[in-house]
């Protein structure tokens, strides 16, 4: 195994007290993880075999995210959407979809809302993890470049006119703003600004930069940088109250 990745895996075990187990599994994302608990005493990382060529990097990212979440083992955060507000939003959005039958509109709205919240929860921590991997795993830079460029290409497919015309504006703009922030962040980390062209062309430059600016104002050493960024973005995107933080202790 790649030595830097092994060191990262060791860091997770040292910091959290639990080892990491890796499983190849077809999932909807590139990779994911489930944090260990006393009842399930292993961090379970899942890697999508479709992206196997960047597997080491994806594993390094998941390890970095575990380290971020477990920075204070007495307060491990869990992002928890507020069911009442989410249901209200689903009703609100689906009510505007006049040309779609109600059950389909409900289902589509539910998918959009959960996707939006998933992005709010995941993009800030991904940006932090990207920085950790850049710093701690230089030998994975090539994999990181390829994997993120591929991910950003997948993300820009959202800008397709068909998707834009079928997605309610308030959801579309928030999603794209977060994607743009991720794109601008990667442009800064990698030095390759070409990846931001599509957001410039589509007019999402300002909002993306605004979110990236908010991310940067938070002290990188702060133990709660992840939660603070999510909260700050929620403020910018008018998503306050759509979720709560739940904390658990590993002591």
């Amino acid at each position, binding site marked *: 195994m790649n030595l830097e990745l092994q060191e990262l895996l060791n860091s997770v075990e040292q910091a959290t007290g639990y080892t990491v187990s890796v*499983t190849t599994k077809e999932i909807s994302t590139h990779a994911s993880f489930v944090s260990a608990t006393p*009842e*399930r005493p*292993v961090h379970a990382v899942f890697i999508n075999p479709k992206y196997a060529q960047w*597997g080491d990097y994806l594993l390094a990212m998941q390890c970095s995210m575990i380290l971020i979440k477990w920075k204070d083992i007495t307060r491990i955060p869990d992002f928890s959407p507020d069911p009442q507000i989410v249901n209200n939003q689903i009703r609100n959005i689906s009510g505007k979809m006049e040309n779609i039958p109600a059950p389909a509109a409900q289902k589509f709205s539910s998918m959009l809302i959960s996707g939006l919240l998933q992005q709010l929860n995941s993009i800030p921590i991904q940006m932090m993890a990207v920085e950790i991997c850049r710093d701690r795993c230089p030998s994975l830079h090539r994999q990181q470049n390829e994997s993120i460029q591929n991910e950003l290409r997948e993300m820009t*497919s959202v800008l397709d*006119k068909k998707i834009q015309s079928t997605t309610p504006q308030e959801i579309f703009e928030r999603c794209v703003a977060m994607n743009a922030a991720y794109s601008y962040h990667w442009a800064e980390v990698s030095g390759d600004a070409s990846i931001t062209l599509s957001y410039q*062309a589509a007019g999402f430059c300002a909002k993306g930069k605004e979110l990236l600016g908010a991310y940067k104002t938070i002290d990188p050493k702060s133990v709660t940088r992840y939660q603070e960024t999510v909260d700050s973005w929620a403020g910018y995107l008018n998503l306050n109250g759509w979720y709560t933080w739940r904390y658990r202790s590993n002591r």
Partner: protein
Amino acid sequence: MTASPDRIIFRFHLSELDPSLLPVEPSLLQAGTSPAAESIRNYFEKSLGFDLAEIHVDFQGDHVNVEWKPRTPNSEKALIGWAVDILKAGAYKMGQVVFSVLAEAFPENIVVLCNYGMLLSDLGHLDKAIPILVKTTNLEPDHANAWNALGVAYQRKEQDEDALFALQKSHSIDPENIYTIRNLGGLIAKKDPPKALNLLKKAAFLLPNDQGAQYGYGLCLRLTGNLAEASSVLHKAIDVAPYSELAELCRSELTAISHEIMREKGGGVRMDVVMYCIAAMERYKELGSEKTKTIAFEIAMLGRSGFDINNPSKKYKLKSLPGEFTGLQLVAYMYVGLKMVDPSLDSGIDFSREYEHALQLYKTR
């Protein structure tokens, strides 16, 4: 669509142009905005134009037409070289458009036909691919790569007899063609593993970073009873790409091999496993069902990277249970734990005889 050696027009939908070849983003391609148009024009002019050919790029809605007119006798070769490079870059959608036109313009060009046939075969269009590859082998009967590609296409179509003929033909023309060796070995191994062993060994040696070649050889070694070497080759195969679907198959094979080695060592019912099962039953009874689930889960997850069940000197530790354990002991604990949680769960190893024995002994205590 115009296609003759003197004038070719490629017509691409913007989404068919591979962004990795162009310095623009996919959304810009879809939007058809001017930076995208400029990038696309530059790309074709730089790749195909200058002294070699006259190039005209014309945008029509969400399509782009690229007209090519040769300027020198070398133009055709350069054009075909560019087309092959597109395939090498993995831009299959774009390659499909390009090669369908080239096959029309140069209907007897072997490079064009062979690449087009392989592309269609890779894309699963076997009914189109096979006639093109047959035509290629008719035009050039000593083209080992074309025979190999035809063999692969037949194999994908599950026409194993035709595949065997084509691959053997390729092998007879070029006995050192490593891809033919690998493909022929894989095909023969389906029916006669011992006969395929030497071919697959050679393929694995010559293609150390080809996971398929390593897996094929490892599997064949297992089927021919060389379990220790099979295990070593399959571990090597996993290292090539640890997170691929093929790596998962290698892991399953390794579990099966460990099991076979254990059975070879211990004959019928393994009494050491029976004793581990009884110890697990006693331990779980003390600890209760929730803790049992936790332990079984932890062992199952840690076992993802493989326990060495045939090495009693190697010890493992758990977070959920104090002490040090051998691999065999842990797998027995997992087996019993999973049986207690849900008897239908598959632990990946068959300790059913030992478990039944243990259960009877445990009840009589």
